[in-house]
């Protein structure tokens, strides 16, 4: 009745159920900590955003069939404290600065200008001035960036040690209309 196979099956079933209980407990407790630390209402201060526009002709900058493509970069100040996102189930924070805008009447867009991986709680305070964006952005449509309204937001994503990925955004948007300036 108690063959080797059956014993093995019992042990692995037990281990599986216990594993699920532990994972659920870890997820619930870390979520409780996030709520407790007010992680979903972290203030951030995006400020002093300056835009730089130039024209590229490479496929890796959105140009297709040799047509020149307008690219936009920014410089910005950023001030925030992401310490509340760290708890015992936080492996890393991926924090990213995006802009939302309308490419045309029909197309809504959101693009990432800058991002950062934070692995340690000690590095969770971000305080930078005049930082250059990591990415050069082109639009999917042929439209120019001039006079477009960009709304900047700071988002975060918690990569857990185990369980569900958690997303959120900080409070403090920054709006800007791209000015009609000479190319840089």
């Amino acid at each position, binding site marked *: 009745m108690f063959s*080797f196979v059956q014993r093995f099956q019992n042990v692995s079933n037990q281990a599986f159920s216990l594993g699920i209980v532990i994972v659920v407990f870890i997820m619930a407790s870390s979520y409780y900590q996030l709520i407790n630390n007010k992680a979903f209402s972290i203030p951030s201060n995006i400020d002093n955003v300056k835009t730089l526009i130039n024209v590229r002709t490479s496929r890796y900058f959105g140009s297709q069939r040799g047509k020149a493509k307008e690219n936009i970069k920014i410089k910005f100040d950023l001030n925030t404290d992401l310490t509340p996102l760290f708890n015992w189930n936080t492996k890393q924070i991926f924090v990213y600065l*995006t802009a939302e805008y309308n490419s045309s009447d029909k197309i809504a*867009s959101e693009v990432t200008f800058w991002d950062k991986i934070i692995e340690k709680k000690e590095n969770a305070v971000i305080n930078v001035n005049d930082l250059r964006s990591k990415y050069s952005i082109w639009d999917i449509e042929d439209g120019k960036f001039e006079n477009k309204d960009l709304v900047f937001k700071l988002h975060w994503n918690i*990569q857990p040690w185990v369980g*569900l*990925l958690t997303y959120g955004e900080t409070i403090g948007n920054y709006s800007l209309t791209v000015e009609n300036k000479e190319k840089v």
Partner: protein
Amino acid sequence: MNLRSELQKLLNVCFLFASAYMFWQGLAIATNSASPIVVVLSGSMEPAFQRGDILFLWNRNTLNQVGDVVVYEVEGKQIPIVHRVMRQHNNHADKQFLLTKGDNNAGNDISLYANKKIYLNKSKEIVGTVKGYFPQLGYITIWISENQYAKFALLGILGLSALLGGE
């Protein structure tokens, strides 16, 4: 040795494989993804995902958000890629184009896309969005698929235990 009990054992083995297959296909229907559980094969998303980690996917969303980690399959290439969405452009309905990048890569994924395209089509190329994570356990499948002796050993043990193990 009687034929009836031998056939019974054979039936049990068939039942085992059939139920595993049904579970997998049921999960695929529930998540609307062709492969709802994937194992990470490369280090392009480190330190978030390492080789051997298991990811659970969901594909019932019509649009993706910027920052989502998606699994996509480029036509003509067999290997699914796990990367993060950097940009999204949608038509306020069900049509969406995405640009992706691996956290650990310097540049975006344009060089990986098929036919000189510079965007992914959400409805055609996205296999699923990563929702859940379990570390390291997927190493078993990597080990089995990359080591031919392991494959034979596993099949042998499964077959032997099913045929020899009397109830």
